[in-house]
């Protein structure tokens, strides 16, 4: 995991990915969520819990 990911989504891709993720309840990786948050200005709502 890179918390300071240099990976930057182009805005259109970020918006499309966000819409898709929300529509399908797709699970985002930390890098994807951070990139989306940065590009869209939306805060991350994070639930941390056990996988099991």
């Amino acid at each position: 995991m890179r918390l300071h990911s240099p990976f930057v989504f182009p805005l259109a891709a970020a918006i499309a990915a966000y819409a898709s993720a929300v529509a399908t309840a797709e699970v985002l990786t930390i890098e994807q969520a951070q990139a989306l948050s940065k590009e869209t200005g939306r805060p991350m709502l994070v639930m941390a819990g056990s996988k099991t």
Partner: protein
Amino acid sequence: MQERLNTDGSIASLVAQFVPLKVETDGPNWGQWATKYRHEGTGIPILYVIRADGEKLYGQSGSKEGAELPQFLITHLRNSGTIFNNQQLATIKSVVDDVNKSLAEKDEFTAVKRAYTLSKLGTPGKLGSYATIAKEADEQYVKLVEQGKAALSDAQRKLTGDDKFAGVLGVVSASRIYGVIPDLKKDLVSAERDLGKNAELKPLVQAAESLDRALALAGQKMPTLQKQGITVLAAIVSRNANPAATKIAKAKLAELGADVPAATATPKGPRTWTDTTGKFKIEAELVRVADGKVELKKPDGTVVNVPLDKLSAADQAAATGK
């Protein structure tokens, strides 16, 4: 809570304003996450709200149930800056791109006008969103405001120097380009009003406005507009009513590769002639220039001869038409 976030329609509009993320506390990424984002309390689940700039707004063990959940979401959205929808973000992106393009073409007027269209989404320069493109738009607008302030300040500095026409032209031009910006409007209007109150500068305003409009048109990409600008610039040169305007118009025509007409007239009627020190002034009409001397006729009919090189640069240009 996770189930409710996905299925409760009554809070869907709030949830949609967040980017959802699940982090596994027994997964490989947990250590790094937990080091960066400390939380309070013990046990799982742990709930976090991380603002788009990476600032942690909330991090505590325990979930939010019942009416507590929507209230929790509302509270943290309030601290998350302006949240624009996808269409608004696309609009901001389009404006930022257009402004950059106009600035690359040195068309500040169009850049300012386009940047100000963001006023329909908020206060330009203070959109208050943490979205990358919105922050870029804010920075871009602030830079334009600074440019406008610098342009006005530069013009006002010139007004105190020898080349007063350049100062008047600077004020007129800054007003046309940056006048739409509320932060600058007051100062620009005040600067223009001051020109009108100053007996020495007032006569220069009309020539400056005409030249500014012509220069703006001549700088346009559209051939019809550019042609209009060239026509007006050529007229300014032919008329030669203001030597400083003539000189700038000539330079622009040459830069554009357009024909530069001959200046057919010298200034008619009395005007104020100033020496190189700026201390001595005389109201007189130009009779002729010969042997390095300028013959001037005062309103009382007396004729005085002044060495050409003793006149200010602007007056030398006025006398010689260069």
